[in-house]
């Protein structure tokens, strides 16, 4: 027993030391830009070193902490990936929002100038405003349409399966493709049918309505599926009891079904809310944010239908103001985080009450 422990200890130490040496060597080659000879294998050194260190940790002879070590080793790949791809970029992003970064380099720190500028920027404020408007309208429309479709698809109609699939289908088409399909419909088909001189996408108001139509069309089927699931969970005995008591269909719907699936409503509201806030692809493909707005904060704007995500994208990629776009993105993040937290809190409360 003792021998075994000491053997393990030696193995563990050896692995740890060699592992760290390999990793340090890799770092050394990278920092000194020594890419020739052994330096060409620095990536291999790094990976091998990391694996050896992990193995070394695994072989540490301890009974007390063994479980903790196993937990750590199993969680490590995920946590590491999460930190590298989410946490670090987020902090780098926050840092960049205080600079005049153009995507390649930054020349100076600008403090909170970017944050001040966005509240004085009529185009951005307009984007914020119509995004909120879009979210509210969509939350209502998508849920209403989806719920009605769900009711329709849970009745004993013939071919319900077909309808379910048909309503869900638009959700399987990517937003960009969908945007171009609908652009064709608005520009080439509807203009001919309605005999109008120009497409609905040409003026801000009609283009905004067009985006809502397309979005509801795309998203209602998905939400419908969730409602169908919710409606299926309503216990049959309760419905039967209501029937025996002589409740009308309307009364059953409002007094039994809807209260029974309150949790589903919360989930769906939450889903539509966040996804509408992040609306980007349909917006890009359908109007690219175009549309004239007159007299907003005393300016004439050309971004009548530009949602906030597209506005951020354009600020970075069309205007090369990556730092400024980063600041906008952080505001966007804060808004989304607040909305999500609020939603979660509300839904938790309600579920407890039930």
């Amino acid at each position, binding site marked *: 027993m003792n021998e075994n422990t000491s053997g393990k200890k030696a193995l563990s130490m050896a692995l740890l030391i060699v592992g760290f040496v390999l990793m340090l060597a890799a770092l050394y080659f990278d920092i000194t830009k020594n890419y020739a000879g052994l330096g*060409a*294998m620095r*990536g*291999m050194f790094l*990976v*091998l070193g990391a*694996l050896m260190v992990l*193995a070394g940790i695994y072989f540490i002879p301890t009974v007390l902490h063994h479980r903790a070590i196993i937990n750590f080793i199993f969680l490590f790949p995920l946590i590491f990936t999460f930190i590298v791809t989410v946490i670090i970029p987020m902090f780098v992003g926050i840092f960049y929002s205080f600079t005049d970064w*153009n*995507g*390649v380099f930054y020349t100076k720190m600008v403090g909170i100038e970017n944050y001040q500028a966005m509240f004085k920027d009529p*185009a951005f404020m307009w984007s914020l405003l119509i995004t909120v408007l879009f979210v509210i309208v969509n939350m209502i429309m998508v849920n209403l349409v989806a719920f009605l479709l769900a009711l329709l698809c849970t009745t004993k109609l013939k071919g319900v399966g077909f309808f379910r699939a048909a309503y869900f289908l638009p959700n399987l088409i990517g937003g960009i493709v969908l945007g171009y399909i609908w652009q064709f419909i608005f*520009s*080439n088909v509807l*203009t001919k049918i309605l005999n109008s*001189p*120009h*497409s609905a*996408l*040409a*003026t801000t108001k009609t283009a905004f309505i067009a985006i809502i139509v397309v979005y509801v069309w795309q998203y209602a089927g998905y939400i419908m599926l969730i409602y169908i699931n919710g409606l299926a969970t309503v216990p049959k005995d309760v419905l039967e009891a209501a029937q025996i008591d002589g409740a009308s269909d309307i009364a059953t719907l409002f007094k039994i079904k809807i209260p029974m699936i309150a949790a589903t409503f919360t989930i769906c509201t939450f889903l539509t809310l966040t996804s509408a806030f992040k609306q980007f692809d349909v917006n890009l493909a359908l*109007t*690219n944010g*175009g*549309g*004239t707005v007159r007299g907003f904060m005393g*300016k*004439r704007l*050309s*971004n009548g239908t530009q949602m906030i995500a597209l506005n951020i994208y*354009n600020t*970075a*990629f*069309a*205007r*090369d103001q990556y730092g400024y776009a980063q600041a906008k993105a952080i505001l966007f993040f804060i808004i989304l985080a607040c909305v999500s937290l609020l939603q979660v809190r509300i839904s938790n409360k309600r579920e407890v009450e039930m």
Partner: protein
Amino acid sequence: MKKYLAIFLVLTMFVALLPTAAFAADDGIILFNGKIEIANALQHAAEVYEQATGKHVEVNSLGGGVDLQSELKQRYQAGNMPDIFTCEGTPDFSNWTGMMVDMADQPWAADTEAEFIDSTGATVGFPYTTEAIGLAYNKSILDKAGIDPASITGPESMKAAFEKLDSMKDELGIKAVIGYCANSKELYWSTGNHLFCNYLDAGLARDDSTYFDLMMKEGKLDEQRFADFAAMVDLFNKYSDPALLVSGNYDLQVSGFAAGNYAFVTQGSWIGASLTDQYKELYAAAGNFECGMIPYAFEEGIDTILTNPPSHWAVYKEGKVDEALAFLQWLAGPDGQQIMVQEAGLNSPFKSCTVVANDPFAPTIADFTARGKTSSWHFLDQPANMAEDFIGGIFQDFAMGAIDINGFIEDMTVTIPDAVNQ
């Protein structure tokens, strides 16, 4: 025991991987081309060059709706910067200040006037082509209507020609006099950059940037000149194809011109390659008509078309500089020009080049260039988003009748300062 075996196998696997890592091949230089239309010809040039010199050149072509600069930035951040890359105008070049090689000492630099020189006087851009912006026309339609393009020298003669063509639409078999599209989502770059730059530059000497400076420094438009320009746009709105004007797109516009549906089209010389390649069936069915350009003569006396390189190639300082420069020099020489001009259909910016392109617009450009009747364009130096975020939409509003000519002038007057002072 099993455990050790597993570890041993893992180690073997990694050792087996070592040679690939150690001997990662050095694969020649990378050229990042932003003009997708010439991708095949450029690939061919690279192959010919490899045969002649044994040096490999990898051509990465991107184009269409791709934002080249953001793609480049991604590659830069990934440590994967191409050795030669495309930049359009001052804003693009200023992204890479201090990272580009000064090529003033290269032999080709003495052979051209179209190189890009940055604010410090360094020659950082290699010109691979020149393009022209003018009012493109279909010569066979004008001939049939008995209109001499050279007789269109000002607003009155242009209006008269448009009216005459409009009255003969059925005889000529055309849909509309002009293929003009102001859809701001699809063609903001055409109206906001290419058409608008005629207000800025048409008729001026090549080194004259009066109206551009007035716009950029004071945010102002010249009232009389812009009113004349607006009257021309009004004329285009009136005589364009209604199906194209607000809801059309670039493909409809160019294919319509190729098919002989329009006597004029508001696109530049780059559509020549589309006529002979992408739409060659339509173009052949319309009789492979002769093309030409006239100046956008919105004022009497405007007699120039605009010619410039649409973009330049820069050489990355940290890359394989010598090999990249050698390749560019070869491209500028007779062997390279042979391919660039004849296969890619480019207009050579080099004086020593004797190869003549078979592009439909090559003769007209050569003619204007020989007579010294060209102006340079400056729209590449205006804020990059000016057309998309500011003025493109005004052209569309005007086209769909949401505003009249006075509204157009007024909207432009109040929007230009916002665009240049963002």
